[in-house]
C-alpha cells in the first residue's frame, strides 16, 4: 500500500483499529480527539513535513499511547478476566440448575390422571390437630429475648448483591483455652463498628448464652495480631465509624475496663441482669482473681525483661576478694557489656601492706563463667572464671591476685578464677548479670570452657569407674 509510508495515515489506521476492537469503549472516549489531530495532519498533507516538528508530534503521540497502555489496557484485561470468571461461575451454577421452559403445546391431552377431583366430603375430620411447633414452643417457653437480635441484620453471610467484609474476631472474654480460635464474622460493609460489635455478641450468645454479655457500648474492637494478641498500643476503633473505613481483618473484642453492669438502662435488657446476679458476681470475682494473677505474671515478665535489657549496662557491686595466699581485699566489681573491672577499695593502712593490690580489668570476651560456689548464712561465695590466653590482655597483674585454677592447663588457654564473697543478694545479682551478658555475647571462651568442663566430667567419671 502506498499509504503505508505515511506515518499519519498509519497512526490513524492503528488508532481506528484500536478503537474498533475495543469493547470497553474507553479508547474511543479518549482517542477520538487525538485521531482528529492525526486526520488534520493527514489532510494538511505536507509532502515532507519538517522532521523536527513531526518527531515532536510523534513523541507526543507515543507518550500518549504509552499512557494509554499503562492505564487502560491492563485494567481492561483484568475486567475481561473478571467478566470471564463471572460467566464461568454463572455457567457452572446454571449447569447445576435444572431449567424448565414453558412450552405452549396443544393442550389436547387427557387429564384424567392429573386433574382428579378429590372427594372433599371425607375431609371433614373432627380429629384434634396437634402442632409440633406449639409443643416446641411450650418446652422453650421462657427464652428471654436476645438483646442483640437487632444486630442480626448486619450479618453479611449468605448475602448477595451487597458488599460484605469478613473479620476474624478474637474474644478476650472467653476462657484462655478457647481464645486461640477467632470467630469468623461476615458483616455487611455499611455497618458501623458498634453494629459489628453487636453482631459478634449476638453470634457469641448463640453459643455461650447471654448471661455474661454487656451492651455493645461496653466493648471495644482493637487491632489484633494474626495470632490473637490484642495490640493495645492503638486505641479501639471508633464505635460510630463505618467498619469499612478500617482495613484490619483481625480484631479483638475487649471489654472496657471502666464498664460496669450498672449501665443497663435499656428496659429490655434489665431482665437480663436481674436473671442471675449471683452467677454474674461469682464469675466476675473469679475473673478478677485471674486477672490479678495475670497481672503478677506480667509484672514478673516485665522485670525479667528489664534485667535482660539492662544487663550490658554498667553497674558496680561491692564484694570481698578472697585468695588462698593473700589477705582478703575489699573490691568494687564493675560489670558492663564490655568489661569486668575489679578495683580494690582503698583502705586505711593499705600502704602498710607488703604488696599493692592493683586494679584488674578483663574484657567480657575473656570471661568464661560466673557461678555461685557456696552459700553460707553469713557470706555467699562466688567465682568468676576467666581465660588468660584468649584475648588475655588483662591489665594489672592477675598473677599476684589470683591463685591458678586447679584445671588450668588446657593447651594455650588457661582458665583461672577469682573468688569473691559477698552477701547473698549482691552475689545473686552479680552472677545473674554476668551470665546474662555471657549469654548475649556467647564468646568462644565460654564455649571452650564449657567444653573443657564436660570433658573433665567424663574423665572424672571414667576415673571413678576405674577406681
Amino acid at each position: 500500500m502506498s499509504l503505508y509510508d505515511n506515518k499519519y495515515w498509519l497512526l490513524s489506521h492503528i488508532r481506528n483499529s484500536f478503537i474498533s476492537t475495543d469493547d470497553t469503549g474507553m479508547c474511543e472516549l479518549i482517542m477520538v480527539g487525538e485521531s482528529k489531530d492525526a486526520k488534520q495532519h493527514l489532510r494538511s498533507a505536507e509532502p515532507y513535513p519538517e522532521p523536527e516538528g513531526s518527531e515532536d508530534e510523534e513523541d507526543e503521540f507515543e507518550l500518549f499511547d504509552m499512557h494509554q497502555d499503562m492505564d487502560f489496557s491492563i485494567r481492561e484485561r483484568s475486567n475481561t478476566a473478571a467478566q470471564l470468571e463471572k460467566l464461568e461461575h454463572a455457567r457452572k451454577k446454571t449447569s447445576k440448575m435444572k431449567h424448565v421452559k414453558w412450552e405452549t403445546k396443544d393442550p389436547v391431552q387427557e387429564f384424567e390422571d392429573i386433574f382428579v377431583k378429590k372427594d372433599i366430603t371425607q375431609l371433614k375430620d373432627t380429629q384434634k390437630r396437634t402442632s409440633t411447633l406449639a409443643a416446641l414452643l411450650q418446652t422453650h417457653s421462657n427464652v428471654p429475648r436476645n438483646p442483640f437480635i437487632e444486630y442480626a441484620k448486619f450479618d453479611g453471610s449468605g448475602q448477595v448483591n451487597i458488599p460484605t467484609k469478613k473479620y476474624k474476631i478474637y474474644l478476650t472474654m472467653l476462657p484462655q483455652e478457647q481464645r486461640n480460635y477467632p470467630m469468623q464474622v461476615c458483616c455487611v460493609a455499611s455497618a458501623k463498628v458498634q453494629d459489628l460489635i453487636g453482631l459478634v455478641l449476638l453470634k457469641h450468645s448463640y453459643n455461650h448464652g447471654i448471661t455474661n454479655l454487656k451492651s455493645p457500648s461496653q466493648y471495644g474492637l482493637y487491632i489484633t495480631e494474626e495470632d490473637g494478641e490484642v495490640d493495645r498500643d492503638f486505641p479501639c476503633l471508633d464505635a460510630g465509624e463505618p467498619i469499612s473505613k478500617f482495613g484490619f481483618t483481625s480484631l479483638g473484642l475487649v471489654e472496657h475496663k471502666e464498664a460496669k453492669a450498672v449501665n443497663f438502662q435499656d428496659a429490655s435488657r434489665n431482665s437480663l441482669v436481674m436473671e442471675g446476679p449471683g452467677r454474674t458476681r461469682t464469675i466476675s470475682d473469679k475473673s478478677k482473681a485471674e486477672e490479678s494473677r495475670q497481672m503478677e505474671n506480667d509484672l514478673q515478665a516485665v522485670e525479667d525483661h528489664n534485667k535482660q535489657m539492662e544487663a550490658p549496662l554498667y553497674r558496680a557491686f561491692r564484694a570481698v576478694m578472697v585468695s588462698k595466699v593473700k589477705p582478703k581485699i575489699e573490691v568494687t566489681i564493675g560489670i558492663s557489656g564490655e568489661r569486668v573491672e575489679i578495683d580494690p577499695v582503698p583502705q586505711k593502712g593499705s600502704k602498710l601492706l607488703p604488696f599493692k593490690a592493683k586494679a584488674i580489668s578483663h574484657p567480657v570476651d575473656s570471661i568464661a563463667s560466673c557461678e555461685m560456689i557456696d552459700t553460707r548464712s553469713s557470706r555467699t561465695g562466688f567465682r568468676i572464671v576467666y581465660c588468660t590466653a584468649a584475648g588475655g590482655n588483662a591489665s594489672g597483674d592477675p598473677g599476684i591476685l589470683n591463685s591458678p585454677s586447679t584445671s588450668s592447663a588446657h593447651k594455650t588457654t588457661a582458665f583461672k578464677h577469682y573468688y569473691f564473697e559477698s552477701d547473698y543478694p549482691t552475689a545473686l545479682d552479680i552472677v545473674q548479670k554476668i551470665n546474662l551478658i555471657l549469654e548475649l555475647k556467647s564468646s568462644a571462651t565460654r564455649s571452650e570452657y564449657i567444653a573443657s568442663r564436660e570433658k573433665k566430667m567424663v574423665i572424672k567419671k571414667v576415673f571413678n569407674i576405674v577406681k
Partner: protein
Amino acid sequence: MMTENSENDQIILATGGYDHTIKLWQTHTGICSRTMQHAESQVNGLEISPDKDLLAAASYQHIYMYDLHSNNPSAIVNYEGTSKNVTSVGFQEDGKWMYSGGEDCRARIWDLRSRNNQCPKIFEVQAPINCVSLHPNQVELFVGDQNGIIYRWDLRTDNNEQLIPENDAMILDIDISPDSQLMASVNNKGKCYIWSLVSGSNDTPTKMIPKQKFEAHKRHALKCKFSPDSNLLITTSADQSAKIWDTSDFSLVQELIQENQRWVWDAAFSADAQYVFTASSDGYAKLWNVKKGVMEREYAGHQKAVIALAFRDAS
C-alpha cells in the same frame, strides 16, 4: 434431644423479600439456620412442596426451586418462560403439578411429574394476576386480578366463572378454607368478602354464595388466610397490623400490632392455630400467640422488607 431435633427438622419456616435472600429459621430460637441466595430478583411468594423437599420461590420471570435438605445456597430448578413477575405459586396436594399466576395476566399449570413439562395449561385473563388459590378438591383454581375479578377456573373442563365483588378494587388475595366451606378475598380498599362454597358432586362446579362483607382494614388488605381448622381467618394489611377473625361470625378475635412494623405482608398459622407467623416490611418475621395477641419470637436477619413466608408444621 435427638427426637426433638428431628421433629424440629420437619418444621419449616422460610422467609423472603426484597433483600434477595431466602432464609430458613429455627422456629423456637429465632436463629437463622440457612440463607439461600436469590440474586436475580425479590421474592414475591414462597411455597413448600407437599413432600417438604422443595421450596418454590415466585420471582421476576422465574419460579426457582430450592432444595430444603441440602445446604446448596442456589436454586436447583428454574422454571422460566413467564415474561413478568410471578406473583403466586402453589402445589397440588400430591405434588403432581404446580400452579402459578403472574403479572403477564396468565395462570399456569406446571407438570412436575415428568422432565419436560408434559401438560402445560394456561389460563389468560384481562389484567395482571395478583393471587391464585386452589380449591381443596384439587380441580378448581381461583384467580384474582387487578381488575377486581375473581375467576373460578375448572382445570378439567377449562370453563370459567367470574365474580366481581367490588368495582374499581384490586383483588389482592383469595383463600379457601381447608374444610372447603368458605372462600375469603381481600382487596386494596381493606375490604374482606366471604362466600359460602357449595361443592357439587362429581362434575358439577362449586357454587359460590355471597355470605358476608366487612371492612377488615382501613388501607390495603394484603393477604388472607384460613387456619388449618377453618375456625380463624387472618388478614394482613398496609395499616401495619394483622387481624384475626372468627369464621363463625367474622368478629375480631385478635389484633396483632407492633409499633413501626410497617406493612404486614404475609401470614401463616401453626397446625393447631395457636400461633401465627407474620412477615413485615421492618425486615422481621414474627411469631404471635393467637390467644394472647402478643409476639413471642422475632426472626431477624433480613436486610430489607420481608414480604413472603412459607411455613410447614409437623404433627
